[in-house]
């Protein structure tokens, strides 16, 4: 066991955990941040996706010791108060979910994609999102949601509000 300092969603946390524990287990079981989901434990489904310094990472195969000095963003940290992130808004607007268990990971991956490429084409979206599984099969809606968010973010960028 070791004392590990984490910066999650702009807040400082201290946990006492085995350093090899997965970030996902620490988020869920130590900190009760259950928005990130377990789906496979081998980085194959993307339900556990979080942002590490702005990049998408599968938290189920990321040991907590490797992210101690980094900025971690989870689904719980995406909205600003009551104001949803444009990607969250877009998922609602497109009805891009059914059971929605994959939704946290989908949204976090989409945010990472748009951070890197603000105007992705459908092919780029599909390539980037290929590691995220939606078993209910809402993929076409998720692609549309990401396109919609891309437009919102572009508009907001011009207005300089976000």
């Amino acid at each position, binding site marked *: 066991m070791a004392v590990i300092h984490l910066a999650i969603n702009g807040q400082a946390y201290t946990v006492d955990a085995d350093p090899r524990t997965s970030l996902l287990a620490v988020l869920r079981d130590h900190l009760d941040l259950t928005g990130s*989901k377990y789906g496979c434990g081998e980085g194959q489904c993307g339900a556990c996706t979080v942002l590490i310094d702005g990049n998408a990472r599968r938290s189920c195969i990321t040991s907590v010791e490797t992210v101690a000095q980094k900025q971690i963003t989870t689904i719980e940290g995406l909205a600003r108060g009551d104001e949803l992130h444009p990607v969250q808004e877009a998922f609602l607007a497109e009805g891009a*979910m059914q059971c929605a268990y994959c939704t946290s990971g989908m949204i976090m991956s989409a945010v990472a994609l748009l951070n890197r490429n603000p105007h992705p084409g459908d092919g780029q979206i599909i390539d980037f999102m290929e590691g995220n599984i939606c078993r209910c099969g809402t993929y076409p809606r998720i692609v549309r949601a990401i396109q919609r968010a891309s437009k919102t973010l572009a508009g907001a960028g011009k207005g300089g509000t976000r």
Partner: protein
Amino acid sequence: MSRKTQLETIIEPERCELAAAPLYHFDLDRREFFKFLGAGLLVVSVLKSGALTQESGGRHQWQGDALPQAIDAWLHLGENGKITVYTGKVEVGQNIRTSLSQAVAEELRVVIGNIELVMGDTQLTPFDMGTFGSRTTPTMNLQLRRVAAAARDVLVGLAAEQWKADRRRLLVSDGKVTDPQTQRSVEYAALVKGRQLTERVPAEDPLTPATKWTVAGQSVPKLNGQDFVTGKHRYPADQTLPGMWHGKILRPPSLGATLVSLDSQKAEAIGVAVVHDGNFVGVAAPSVRQAEAALAALHAEWKSEPQPSSKDLFDYLRQNTVEGRDPAGDGDRIDAGNVDQALASAEHRLKQTYTVSYIAHVPLEPRAALAKWEGDNLTVWTGTQRPFGVRGELAEAFRMPEDHVRVLMPDTGSGYGGKHTGETAIEAARLARAAKRAVKVVWTREEEFTWAYFRPAGVIDVASGARSDGTLTAWEFQNYNSGSAGIRTYYEVPNQRIVFHAARSPLRQGSYRALAATANHFARESHMDELAHALNLDPLAFRLKNLKNERLRAVFLAAADKFAWGKQKATPGQGFGMGGGYEKLGNVATCAEVRVDSQSGDVKVVRVVSAFECGAIVNPENLHNQIEGAIVQGLGGALFEAVEFDNGKILNARLSAYRLPRFSDVPQLETVLLDRKDLPSAGAGECPLVGLAPAIASAIFQATGIRIRSLPLIPHGLKIS
């Protein structure tokens, strides 16, 4: 609330196991209700037994005499105007929390935001067999509309009484009753203030016809969608209790293995709870890591029995038929005319065998349960499509009365028919009893792949006869193990023999979204395509020649029209195919276009057009979503999903080894909805799947000349010889 339950054995649709479920003789105690709910208006939906038998296809009689009454929902309108609806149905992503709320809002004339649905809580909601078989929309939606309509009726009566006005001229809208003559209006809340009113719903209350719907029939977005996009919603696996421990189960090294001995000294020394009870061995510890460490410290010896393997599967099923019937399907044996004679004298004969593999549901949220004991009372939060069934399993496992068990079902990370049973609930409860505190068990993906149950595998032999003009004359259809739902042919054939053979299944099998219908439609529709080619007829024209069912003809024609069937010539490597049928009161036709790379054998499904009709549409946007989802999920079983096993071991029990449809697999999806406002609404979770696999198989044939008669069609790509 006092309840007297009577256990009856009833048969659960779409499932090859029997399920015990209580039927209710319900003593309604008004005072108890209002103590719990507060003053206001309570409307109880009383199902007639006739309605119940309809739920399971009209063939299965409930055992014993007709019930005096059975309650399947209730609605409470409080003094604050808040409407709470209680139903035993559960939300697994099919969006019924939204569509059922729409039904209530429609009939009660209130804004949807004023309605709260309490679902799948065995203490608060009326008994319900479970959420499966695409039955929520045709049954519960209707019941809730009736309940809400009855509530509206009571409210109008109250206003009429208060105003001494003729109730016939009063209007209801926006949560108020209005008298247009006097311009008076009164809110529902005011009408029920300080009162304890009850109403039982007669089954035949007049309902608002679909042509006049304003809320139902609309694309209302998922009601609590914001909770899902913010990560706030707590799925079963996210449930916690103070001081809770985590449980892990010691699994046998192979299916069917029995425990010979267990040395748990090392594990116990870690300071965890270890349970060894029969073949069950599990541990509970303050953290998952500690539980895993304790599990690793157990030393167990197991005795394994030889088990069948997937390479021998289809021969095994043929050789291991058992007496028994499919309780859920469309009949185990249908005979008409003289099929042997008709086959012998047919101008054209065709005989082929089709197979389907076991596939796994892979709900993205694996099974999870959190259990807590308080004295002799047990509470379990778990993801299940049958909370009352799981309550029964827990009561049986712990030899306690059902009213000491409460099962709650938080909206769950999908099921697809895979979460009917209560293994995880029992495991968590057993460990919680030993640990003397709440225990949560969340299955790993590997456990989910190995210790849940699968869609049945099966073998189907089809023999047919036809005249040269394309008229079907004989149809023999023998299905081994894949279930009898959708086994009947909707094509007109005078001489038929259709038989379902139950078999000893090497793997544990059970419900799956459109399980048997997928297999039966694959065999039937593939065979129709083969016959059409043999007779040199267009597959659509051949079908229509033998099809009288108007609803089915309509979807075939609609899909063909949208797809431009017959209007384009396939280029090399390109193929078109179709399939369709009916299932669970819905009608579907599917056209698919594939492209095959002649060098690599890569198959890409590039376009799928679905035409679907399920009566009056309740929520068009959600219906589109369900159909698209069914097609995408169906691609997996059609193209590459198969559970591989060898001597009691599942060989591909991981997502890195079991391929699921991903973003890049999705074709261009087009959906035509036929809205039949004159017909009752049916469910849509299953039917849209059934035409896909035969459409793809036929398209691959057209593209390559290779006819594939087994699902999945191309688990390892297409081998072009």
